[in-house]
């Protein structure tokens, strides 16, 4: 099966600033592909080039087997990071309008839009102006507008930002449904848990370069194992331990990367009595750890 997206040494400069520095990657068809990276890494610029909003200065982009992505715009769906709606348009009119811009007929767009809004619990808002919607509802409306025309490939830039847990679950289900239907989903996020939970593939970008790229299992294997601790009490002591190269402390949960020649027993002995331990085990490194480690060292690691 051909890849949904192939980027070959794609480069984009903004004046003297290199936003995207010779990025090459392949997005397999039917996969959920995570675009990870810190702010300013070049994620949005890369995505905009995939959507032919920008054009690369050099290198080539091939989308759904088509080198000229202008031609296949109607087969793509795009949810930008900055989300907005026409405030004075009715929700039903808005999704229908975006559907029609993607080539749907007036009647189809209207019917599909209403059906989607009904299905996602926004039925009573079809005739409400968008300015009356809450932020979460507005974001759902916008995601639905992106999916109106049943695109083969969807690019979602930070789809979970600003959503409550219930709506996060709704959006996650939408993404999983698309995968089941054989579509390709690319989404970018800062939240590693989201990527960990649903991605088949991830790519980690920093300063316009690919740091890590591959199936999630392979990428996680790169990180080796770490110690996971659930605890109660004052976590400040965790920073002072010996035999530890790094602690990712989240307040109730901490992840330790052990220094060479130290083991878990040594760590546990230091912790006991200082905080209340609820769980202590050795596991595969979290994506978060891999992210922090890679961005910190900024050396290209290939997980193939």
């Amino acid at each position, binding site marked *: 099966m051909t890849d949904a997206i192939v980027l070959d040494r794609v480069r984009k400069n903004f004046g003297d600033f290199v936003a995207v520095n010779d990025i090459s990657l392949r997005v397999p068809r039917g996969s959920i592909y995570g675009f990870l990276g810190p702010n300013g890494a070049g994620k949005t610029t890369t995505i905009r080039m995939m959507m032919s909003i920008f*054009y690369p200065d050099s290198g080539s982009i091939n989308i759904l087997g088509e080198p000229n992505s202008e031609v296949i715009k109607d087969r793509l769906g795009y949810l930008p990071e900055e989300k907005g*709606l026409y405030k004075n348009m009715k929700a039903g009119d808005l999704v229908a309008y975006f559907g029609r811009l993607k080539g749907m007929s007036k009647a189809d767009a209207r019917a599909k839009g209403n059906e989607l809004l009904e299905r996602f619990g926004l039925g009573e808002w079809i005739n409400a102006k968008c300015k009356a919607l809450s932020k979460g509802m507005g974001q759902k409306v916008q995601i639905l507008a992106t999916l109106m025309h049943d695109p083969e490939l969807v690019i979602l830039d930070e789809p979970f930002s600003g959503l409550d847990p219930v709506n996060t679950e709704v959006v996650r289900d939408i993404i999983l449904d698309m995968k089941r239907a054989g579509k390709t989903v690319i989404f970018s996020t800062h939240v590693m848990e989201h990527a960990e939970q649903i991605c088949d593939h991830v790519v980690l970008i920093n300063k316009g370069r690919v740091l890590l790229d591959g199936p999630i299992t392979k990428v996680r294997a790169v990180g080796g194992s770490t110690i996971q601790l659930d605890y109660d009490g004052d976590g400040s002591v965790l920073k002072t331990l010996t035999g530890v190269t790094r602690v990712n402390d989240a307040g109730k949960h901490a992840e330790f990367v052990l220094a060479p020649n130290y083991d878990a027993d040594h760590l546990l002995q230091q912790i006991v009595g200082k905080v209340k331990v609820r769980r202590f085990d050795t596991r595969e490194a979290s994506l978060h750890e891999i992210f922090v480690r890679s961005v910190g060292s900024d050396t290209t690691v290939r997980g193939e």
Partner: protein
Amino acid sequence: MRKSLLVAQREIMEQLKTKGFWIGIFLFPVIIVLSVAGPVYLERAKSIRAYAVQDSSGWLAEAVEREAAVADTRRLLLEAQRREMTKQDVDKLPPVLAALAPVMAKLPPSQLDSAARVLALGDSAAATPLADANRTTVLAVREEYRAWFDTASASTLRAVSSAPSRVKYRKVPATGDLNRQVRDAELFAYFEIGRDPVKDNSGLTFVSRNLTDDDLKDWYEGIATELVRKRRLAQEGISAQTASWLNAETQFTQRTVSESGEQAAVGMKDKLRQNAPMVFVYILWIAIFSITQGLLMSTIEEKSTRISEVLLSSVSPVQLMAGKIMGVAGTGLMMILTWVLTALLATKYVPAMLGAPAGQSDFSSLLTDPILLASFVVYFLLGYLLYAAILIGIGSVVNTIQEAQALMMPVMMTLMLPLLAMVPIGRDPNGTFAKVMSFIPTFTPFVMMNRAAGPPTVLEYVGTTLLMVAAIAFTLWASAKIFRIGILMTGKPPKMREIVSWVRTPSGMVPGRREE
């Protein structure tokens, strides 16, 4: 193209939902209707002013009344004559005037006064100059006319002509305490006439509490002056002919030269034609100004709410820009067509609806002048396109209306110039200044409209239009380049130098600014 049309369609629907559009579309017609209907209505609403006269001369007050009746009759006869000659609304005249109308149409202008005297005063001696057939008719109906005229109500008279004094003033007998009556507003005013007005003005007073409206005083003075002068002439043994010859002013008759190069009379329409372009310039200016503002607003909305990026994933920047410009042009055309239509209907029908006599059709005929109208629509579209291209470029680089204002300043200044130059250009439509201004594309639509009375040569029409089209093409091209970069940009608006550099970079490249 399909996508641009979709964008245009949405733009129109959205503009139709804004209050500004409906205010724009209705405010102007309301102003037009009010300005036409207002004076007619005000004139009618003015109550008839009662006045009294204390006459110590024993003749002047009565003579004034007689002359006033003659003057009123003359006006009524003139109107009957006009209707008979234009075959308009003759059947709406009161029967006695309708009967007189055919005679009036045949009467030489010099004899109109005699006919009026016969009818108003029953003075059969005045009928002598009339031709036999006319005299017979006039003498036959004079009793009937007197009966009708003495009892006719103000509204009956006004339906014929708005001018007769009887519609405005009414003499009441001078009885009781006149000062008190004036104070209590029972009387508008009273006149006092001295013992010998022929000698001098001593004892002539006009007593009223309204010190601003001199209409009644002026009207009365006018008639009294004539009567007193006649007596003075008689006293000095000067004939009326000699007197009027002595009094006659030296006048030049205004004439113009027609298209075929011959001398021709100047009509009302010609005068209107000279001034109408200025009205059109105003309307054109307001239309272009308000419509392009709408375009600016909607561009800023899309940018500030970040919808533009979603749109750009479905349409190209050029499609989006074209769609927006077309959509707003659609609403603009709707607006100006409504304006022109109401102006047409208002000038044609409103006065008649309010009971004023018809006859102001000169203005409405001018409005239906196809060349003037067509050039108005064409110049609207050309002017709109040029300013739309500029404003959509500005809208795409700013995030808020406040930021837009700074960039709008030079555009506003440019737009003000043709308004300031309007009167000088109207006076000298083919002067060097007007010609030079016509060839500056930002002024072309206004100045050429302004010069319509000139009119400019065909060469100038073609030349300025070509230049304008070239300017529009260039501006749209530059604006599209600015738009595709600006619409996605966030943060502080760019400096002019930066914008110029965007125009100069080839499409697809994004110069000098970090995006994330």
